[in-house]
């Protein structure tokens, strides 16, 4: 079935629909990852976005229950060059088109994704709509231009109720801005006893749980909408070791006086080299962010930059100078993507243990 992607600048891309046949709008972004389409699609950081895969062939190994990164993904659409006709993998339970259909996510194939990606690279992220007809393209473009699609997006992806992920070691409170399961998997692997709280959790609520550490998760949208959360962080960081990932990193920065800006087209993919300044070590990281921390805004009294992207110098990691708190812009939890930086979770554990040790001797 012929379907279309209409962008806010009025351009029209014709393709063939797959997955759900509903219409939907979102910010059009692209990822350069060559594997991991399922993890990306279920990543809540893509909420309200239409995701373009630069890898031309998607769906080759089907869909596996175990690889979900969230159960109710809020991604608005999937665009690719071609969907595999006959996926094959021993773990596969269903196919990508069927999966998208179940989740009411429309897909569009047969698009010159390279052309589209170049447009996004040159013009920056654009809003777009997947639709059945191109007749009202001009008015659709107009409408897209005026809408703020991602406003309040975290409220739609964060858990409504708190829930436990039981373990037997350290007690971690996880603040859910749109969390990927991979973060919980990393914590579970280290046998943490986690409680996941909604993004609205206050410092008081968190501290009342007496956590050994607090993890601020990833999430979609504009970090500057998270001012309440930033306030919470200002209080929590004084008392408990804290680790922020992606949105969590941005909220941590905001809490300590820095500001964020919207990047032209963001970092999405997993070949971004990141240098740890202290050691010079470089790891390849999984990334998915459209906003970044403005290095000029960083208050050197409170924060130090620990990691930078090798190619464009984006701030990739921060550490508090007074409190045991740090954050990274990328995903040490990978999934999809390389595991080069998963030791950051161990660093978080050590930080917690050290803090406990200090308290014991205090």
């Amino acid at each position, binding site marked *: 079935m012929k379907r279309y992607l209409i962008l806010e600048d009025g351009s029209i*891309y014709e393709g063939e629909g797959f997955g759900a046949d509903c219409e939907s709008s979102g910010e059009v972004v*692209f990822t*350069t*990852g*060559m*594997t*991991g389409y*399922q*993890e990306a699609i279920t990543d809540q950081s893509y909420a309200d976005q239409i995701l373009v895969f*630069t*890898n*031309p*062939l998607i769906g*080759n*190994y089907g869909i*596996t229950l175990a*690889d979900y990164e969230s159960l109710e993904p809020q991604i608005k659409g999937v665009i690719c*060059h*071609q969907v*595999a*006709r*006959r*996926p*094959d*993998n*021993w*773990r596969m339970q269903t196919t990508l088109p069927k999966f998208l259909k179940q989740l009411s996510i429309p897909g569009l194939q047969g*698009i*010159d*994704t*390279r*052309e589209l*990606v*170049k447009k996004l*690279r040159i013009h920056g992220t654009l809003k777009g709509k997947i639709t059945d007809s191109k007749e009202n393209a001009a008015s659709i473009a107009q409408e897209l231009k005026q809408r703020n699609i991602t406003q309040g997006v975290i409220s739609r992806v964060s858990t409504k109720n708190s829930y436990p992920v039981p373990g037997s070691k350290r007690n971690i409170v996880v603040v859910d801005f749109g969390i990927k399961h991979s973060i919980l998997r990393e914590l579970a692997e280290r046998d943490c006893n986690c409680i996941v709280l909604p993004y609205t959790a206050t410092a008081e609520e968190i501290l009342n749980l007496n956590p050994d550490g607090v993890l601020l998760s990833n999430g979609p949208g504009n970090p500057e909408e998270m001012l309440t959360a930033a306030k919470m962080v200002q209080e929590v960081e004084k008392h408990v070791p804290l680790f922020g990932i992606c949105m969590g990193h941005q909220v941590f920065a905001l809490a300590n006086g820095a500001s964020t800006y919207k990047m032209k087209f963001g970092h999405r*993919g997993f*070949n971004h*080299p990141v*240098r740890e300044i202290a050691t*010079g*070590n*470089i790891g*390849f990281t999984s990334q998915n962010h459209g906003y970044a921390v403005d290095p000029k805004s960083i208050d050197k009294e409170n924060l130090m930059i620990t990691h930078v992207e*090798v*190619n464009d110098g984006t701030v990739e990691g921060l550490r508090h100078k007074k409190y045991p708190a740090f954050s990274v812009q990328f995903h040490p939890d*990978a*999934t*999809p*993507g*390389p*595991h*080069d930086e998963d030791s950051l979770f161990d660093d978080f554990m050590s930080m917690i243990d050290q803090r406990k040790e200090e308290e014991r001797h205090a």
Partner: protein
Amino acid sequence: MPKRTDIHKIMVIGSGPIIIGQAAEFDYSGTQACLALREEGYEVVLVNSNPATIMTDTTIADKVYIEPLTVESISRIIRQEYPDAILPTLGGQVGLNMALSLAKTGILDELNIELLGTRLSSIEQAEDREKFKELCKELGEPVPPSTTVNTVEEALEFGDRIGYPIIVRPAFTMGGTGGGICNNHEELAKIAKNGLELSPVTECLIEKSIAGYKEIEFEVMRDHDDNAMIVCCMENFDPVGIHTGDSIVFSPSQTLSDKEYQMLRDCSLRLIRALKIEGGCNVQLALDPNSFDYDVIEVNPRVSRSSALASKATGYPIAKMAAKIAIGMTLDEIKNPVTGTTYAEFEPALDYVVCKIPRWPFDKFSKADRTLSTQMKATGEVMAIGRTAEEAMQKAVRSLEIDEKDLYSETAHHASDEEIEQKLVKAQDDRLFYLAEAFRRGYSLEDVHELTKINFYFLDIVSHMVEMEKNIQENKDNLETLRLAKKYGFSDATIATLWNESIDQVRDLRKKNGIIPVYKMVDTCAAEFESKTPYFYSTYDGENESHKSGKKSVIVIGSGPIRIGQGVEFDYATVHCVKALQKMGYEAIVINSNPETVSTDFSISDKLYFEPLTLEDVLNVCDLEKTEGVIVQFGGQTSINLAAGLKDHGIKILGTSVKDLNRAEDRELFDQIIKKLKLNQPKGLTATTHEGVIKAAEELGYPVLVRPSYVLGGKAMEIVYNKSELEEYLHDHVDIAADHPILVDDYLDGRECDVDAICDGQDVLLPGIMEHIEHAGVHSGDSMAVYPPQNFTDEVKDKIMDVTRKLALTLNCVGIMNIQFIVRNGEVYVIEVNPRASRTVPFLSKITGIEMAQVATRVIMGESLAQQGYSDGLAPEPEMISVKAPVFSFSKLADVDSYLGPEMKSTGEVMGSDHTFAKALYKAFAGAKMQLPENGNVLLTIEDKDKEKILPIAKRFARIGYRIFATKGTADFLKNDGLHVDLVTKVHENKNADDNILNELREGRIDLVINTMGHDIEKNSDGFIIRQMAIQQNVPLLTALDTADALLTSLENRSFATDALK
């Protein structure tokens, strides 16, 4: 860390002659390395014995030595040059082994020479199976149960205990030489024995077979700061069991989930870090298709064929980066030359699909065992890029330049179901066509999976194309169908066949409706960053990214995959043509399909189109680029064959016109010219029927040379001595005879020579005459040759020049051409003319100093020879004497007869130069691995007709202290002349006798075999068996007495006279 300043002069060791398993890819990596080192300001000394390479051009290194890659020869150079360091990891296994050998002699320590790049201990850890296994164990990386053995008994004990199938991998051999899969005790006994003999350290790894697993390769880089990254992941279409060099390969990986991919990526990085590789490295892994279990197959601690492929597949120049790492630079300080804005520390992202298909030599070696296993058999490969897997694969198939132009094979079509199943189970080079045929006959994916173990995803690619064939057939002239067909890579030719139309009808319909390809850029980053890489591939998609520049431009057509008869020499000529065009101010555009070569390095030309070399694909580029024209003279027969079609479509062929190209190639037209010019030519006749051929032969008188018209490299060419041999020939070549007339020539027994002439329409420059060492009868590509000629009088040379001039001017040659002559009794006979550059161009260019391909290019572009400072005539001959020797890959191709004849069999060549002919010969033999002991044992197995000729040769061997071994007939004959001869038993007489020929060979008692039993071509004939045994045992083998004569000349030169006073 910035580059090192404590070293200044670096020696780079090349990979020597091209053989199966070590081909043009090392010219590419070596060239890149040398240029990268010079870019950083180091003085580079290069040693390589292979003249047919770009890397041995004087512009590539500060000093170039074309010398044998032997310890003694390189040591000599080291003592002349005193390099501070040696870079050995870019010259393939040969370069690496040479570095190991040099280190062992102590010369590196003595002269304080450092080995750059990965340390020797690491190399040994990666290459020594036992040490590597230990390392994997330490790292917790799984390896298949295996053991290292030094005897066949140990191998059998392990095999019987672990169970079959078992794989044998000999240590320190190239391309897995001598290895194989054994399904039972008997097979293991046979293969293990062979493997042990081929291994320089008599060692084999015997391991449990994991055939059926997915085979995945990672190209990994690491610097000394421990930054490590993946350049490229490749997935084999064929599961484990077939050598990756013989497998169809896709990139990026197609069937790995992220979890699987990252698991294997982690493993690769753990390995490269543990091995402390500094540079590029290749990791081969096997993944169970039904679990997360995987095994490490092997690690190559150097750049390899796969890294060349990965470089072309991603755009990331691995060898160049590896060279920079070797001199201390780190990945995060080297700029990514593709984007110019990002750093080399970057894992490329692909937004296209790459398909590689190997090119096998079985069109030449029809009798060879075509089964694919762990021993690589391909001589080259093609790569194609598309936006769908189907497109990439179809483009790759038509890049192969084999009989099949798409997935339809006439032979497969006529095979029975049983044969098809057989072909699916036991993979040969042609399995892909049988897969398609099976789907055409209604086999299900499940059926085919059961037989082949190939992943469903991959099988469906083939099945999809077969479905589409039907769809296309049923929708004649339907535009939607046409659009779809093009998107999935169907050629106009295939569509035309399915529609029963002409190719031009399809092309016209397509163009009229705007169904034309766009060209997309290869940029390492999936368009995330702006790039200006002039590297493009065609696809049927939305946006075209390649635009004609304002500059005057010329298209140069490359030579496609490396095959026997069309090797790296033609890539050399292509690159030189590009250089000349650039110097003249033209934009040079290359079209080629071979990922191994220098010409497909995007930094060589102004624009590179990685495309199949078919008329359709080339025309499409022409349509877009609207160049001044196309140059076809340097890409071998591949490009010449495209000339007529291009001209018919209005494309200008630069240089010699198509009409004149045809006059040189068409036998009858050419005969007319010969007659008109009153030149000598061996008498020849053409016949189209069986009876006609026999009649022609009788008219000319035996022996005659028979061959089909329009062939390359002497394919299907034979000398026949009587009627029964001729009938056998006709019987074996029925299908060829049906399509092409058969040429029957009087066979002249004389001295052969080759010339390459450059003509501007007025003057004819003859840079040099290459005299063949062997008499006519051995293909010129398999002959040894010497320059300047040793046996031609000035009068003969004048005659050669005169004939050359006449031919060049009459054929209106503008550019370069090649002529082969036979000189007999002072008369010059023309055998054939090739209106293009030949394989001798690099050799002659290097020794005469005349850059022939460049001079010819300038002529083609309108600059006369006089304007270039050259005058008409034979160029003056230098003092130095240079000898070319062919190199063969027989040990990798079971059942191929190593007897040399008119059909070309060599895969590469070496050169030896010195002040005397004998010394030059010696070096050429040494380069070709024919270094003989001062005294030893020579086995003479001679056909009756050669008995008279062998006598002086035998005497000369005796004179320099060689013992002569022969069977009764020859022995008696030689004894009559007073020679001391040791008698050996014939192959089929008393096989168990200690002095049976085969046993003498097996026991290593023979140092050299001379075998002229050219009529023994049957597999069970004595002559054939002796040759096979010599090859298997790695005993130097000569099949022409002229070669033996030359070898003696070189041996005599180094021995002292032993003459009694009385």
